[in-house]
């Protein structure tokens, strides 16, 4: 049987849609973890990234952060914290936030650092304070990349949260992990299919956000040549 | 020899870059295409090696239509030098120069040896051979570009604003070296520039383009300066045309005066008399080797105690000298203007004073030279090799 038939067989069972282990709840849980981690990561990463981009200090750190973030095995981090912290929510929250920070930070940094130096010069020359420069010129121009960083971060979080089911987290990963444990491939497939759909939805959501949040003039110049 | 016959280049959006161009580039000479931005000179150049294909008309290279040759083969026989040099950053200097020879099948050793030969020819230290382009200055990179174009000894060399990206001092040096090179190699060179001074300095023939791909005049630089075809050409050549033209007239035609040249040990009174006898206020003092030392005012010589040598008078600097054999009337005129005495010092190849000139003598020489030039440029006297006048009635933008 193919993946889709397995998944479909399981998904069309009405009981999957009810109760505490039901699909709607799990979806909400996954979205919840994602949103929470993303917000925390963004609150940390965006200001730091903007600051590094504006002042130019710590650029080396920013660039290498992405590489470092990529090298850390998600499963390892999750499992490590689970064992050392026990049932604390930090066991999953910290890894999710930590893994979301690099893309958000680096993109915010590159977005601000990549602003046309002529533009920055003009802003300084006009007498804008640094804060004004950031708020009125640098951030708007960096918007496409900042949102892109959020999108990448969101995707990382969705993927990590799925894996975090292994250490007991709820969400759609639950189906995958439980299904693997009970050798119920239908459940595994169903879970995987839902995760895929969710990931695509999150991707589409941020693509939409980008259209709305980015001022039209900036969007024009952002098109690939 | 390169011939353009009715060549037109029209782009899909309607712009006409080159319009029914007829032009003959004489073999073994430097033809400079010059004109304002967008006039079609670069397009014309790039049609020669088929980087751009004409919409209509023919281009003949040594009598053969270039359309009939294979593109790549045609290009391997034509050297191409561009503004940004286009050196391959991933190859050493010698491998860059050896590119075309290697392409046509030379053995590596032979190609590299040829590369080193060319490096010497264009004035590059051989030690740079194994370096990479990023390690060279702009001027050096341009020389490599020229060497690379010459590597397979192509009969034709195309140059597209080759010296525009370097600073003026380097540019002047490179221009001089190109002239020297051409004197040795006698390639058919087509050079595009927007700088009319460069065109005049470097070109044997200069084609001045109007906007939108018409030629206003094709002539030798000297003829252009002497007889511009219309006001467009005149404006393009810029002011000072008369004086600039003098650089094409040899200083050897000057009748120099040596009566007021005195050796430094001559008695001041004798020197002063030499000046008075010829009606001049200044006398040129020279040393034992007849090298110039400076101008002495007759009045000052008179004020010296009797018997003092001329050298003890206060001497004004003699300024620029001009070479009687090599320089032009323009140099002589320039030297005259700069001299406090209103007279210039003409020297021979060893730096020894031959005589002095004055505004009067210059006037005579200029007149004579111009008449001689006009006579030899008259139709039927066989100058301005083959260049054809273009239809100057074509409208301008």
């Amino acid at each position, binding site marked *: *049987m193919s*993946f889709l038939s*397995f998944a479909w067989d399981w998904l069309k069972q009405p009981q999957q849609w009810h109760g505490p282990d039901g699909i709607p709840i799990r979806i909400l849980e996954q979205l919840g973890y994602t949103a929470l981690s993303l917000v925390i990561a963004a609150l940390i990463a965006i200001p730091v990234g903007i600051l590094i981009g504006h002042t130019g200090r710590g*650029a080396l750190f920013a*660039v290498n952060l*992405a*590489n470092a973030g*990529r*090298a*850390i*095995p*998600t*499963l*390892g981090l999750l*499992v*490590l914290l689970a*064992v050392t912290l026990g049932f604390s929510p930090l066991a999953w929250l910290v890894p999710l936030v930590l893994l979301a920070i690099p893309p958000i930070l*680096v*993109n915010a*940094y*590159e977005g601000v650092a*990549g602003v046309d130096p002529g533009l920055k010069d003009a802003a300084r020359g006009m007498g804008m304070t640094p804060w004004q420069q950031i708020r009125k010129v640098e951030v708007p121009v960096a918007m496409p990349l900042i949102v*892109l*960083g959020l*999108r*990448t971060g969101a*995707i990382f979080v969705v*993927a990590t949260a799925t*894996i975090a089911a292994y250490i007991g987290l709820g969400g759609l990963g639950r189906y*995958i992990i439980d299904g*693997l444990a009970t050798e119920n*491939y239908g459940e595994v*497939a169903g879970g*995987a*299919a839902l*995760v*895929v759909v969710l*990931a*695509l939805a*999150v991707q589409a959501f941020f693509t939409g956000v980008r259209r709305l949040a980015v001022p039209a003039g900036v969007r024009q110049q*952002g098109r*690939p*040549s | 020899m390169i011939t353009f016959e009715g060549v037109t280049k029209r782009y899909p959006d309607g712009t006409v870059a080159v319009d029914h161009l007829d032009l003959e580039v004489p073999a073994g000479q430097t033809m400079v295409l010059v004109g304002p931005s967008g006039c079609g000179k670069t397009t014309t150049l790039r049609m020669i*090696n088929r*980087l751009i294909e004409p919409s209509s008309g023919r281009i003949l290279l040594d009598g053969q239509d270039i359309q009939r040759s294979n593109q*790549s*083969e*045609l*290009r391997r026989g*034509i050297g*191409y030098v*561009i503004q*940004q040099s286009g050196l*391959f*950053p*991933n190859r050493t200097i010698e491998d860059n120069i050896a590119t*075309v020879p290697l*392409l046509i099948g030379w053995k590596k050793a032979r190609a590299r040896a040829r590369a080193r030969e060319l490096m010497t020819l264009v004035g590059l230290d051989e030690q740079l051979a194994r370096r*990479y382009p990023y*390690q060279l200055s702009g001027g050096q990179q341009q020389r490599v570009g020229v060497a690379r174009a010459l590597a397979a000894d192509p009969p034709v060399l195309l140059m597209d604003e080759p010296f525009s990206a370097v600073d003026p001092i380097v540019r002047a040096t490179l221009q001089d070296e190109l002239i020297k090179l051409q004197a040795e190699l006698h390639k058919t060179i087509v050079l595009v520039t927007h700088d009319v001074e460069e065109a005049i300095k470097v070109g044997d023939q200069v084609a001045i383009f109007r906007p939108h791909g018409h030629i206003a005049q094709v002539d030798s630089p000297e003829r252009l300066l002497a007889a511009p075809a219309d006001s467009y050409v005149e404006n393009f050549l810029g002011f000072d045309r008369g004086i600039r033209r003098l650089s094409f007239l040899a200083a050897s035609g000057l009748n120099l005066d040596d009566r007021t040249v005195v050796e430094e040990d001559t008695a001041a009174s004798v020197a002063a008399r030499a000046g008075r006898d010829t009606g001049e206020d200044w006398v040129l003092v020279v040393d034992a080797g007849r090298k110039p030392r400076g101008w002495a005012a007759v009045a000052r010589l008179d004020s010296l105690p009797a018997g003092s040598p001329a050298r003890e008078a206060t001497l004004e600097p003699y300024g620029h000298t001009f070479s009687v054999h090599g320089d032009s009337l323009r140099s002589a005129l320039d030297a005259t203007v700069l001299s406090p005495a209103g007279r210039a010092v003409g020297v021979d190849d060893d730096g020894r004073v031959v005589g002095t000139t004055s505004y009067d003598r210059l006037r005579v020489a200029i007149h004579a030279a111009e008449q001689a030039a006009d006579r030899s440029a008259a139709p039927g006297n066989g100058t301005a090799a083959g260049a054809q006048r273009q239809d100057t009635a074509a409208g301008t933008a």
Partner: protein
Amino acid sequence: MDWSAVPTYIWESAYLGIVPALLGLVISVPLGIACVRWKWLYPPVLSGASVLYALPSLALFIVLIPYTGLTDTTVIIPLTLFSLCVLVPNVVDGLRSVPEDVRQAATAMGFGALRRLAQVELPIAVPVVIAGLRVAVVSSISLASVGQLIGVSSLGYLIIDGYQRDFVTEILIGGGLIIALALVCDVLLVLLRRALTPWRPRRGRRERAQILIGDPAVAAQAGGAG
């Protein structure tokens, strides 16, 4: 505690990390060349890559199970696709980074398109491609450990085993070795780049971090400039 199996795990992690990246490279070079040659091809390829990159690796492993079972291939295929997503923009960027005057000079000297690609454009693109390769290799090594959840063995085994036994040291060793392996591969690739590009100034321009981020859409955002 059976430590004798660790070298095998290291080898497996390396295998599962490097093979997808190399396969991705082999596919992305022709694909990238095509995207540069036929410009209209690039936007859809990029969109496809963006979408693909968004999918969690675990989900993709699972999708393949009915077809390739619980073997290495199940892990290698999705990781190859991820590597592809990263490498295609890099190949395209690398080729586009060839200065126009260099390309023109090559054509004017009589280089055919293929020769120009092989002797001039691809060599110049090497640094950018290797930057992408670094991302691909490091990501793959790290993601391969997730394959342990479906039983595909690698250093991830130490992590899972350590969790089940509450054995922190084992977890740390597993994770630490993964990171070390990734680091070693990264350094080797940097050395490879240095060896292949003696023609580059040592104090090179800082590599744009977007390319290192690996999100194809981000690469496209930055692409063309710099």
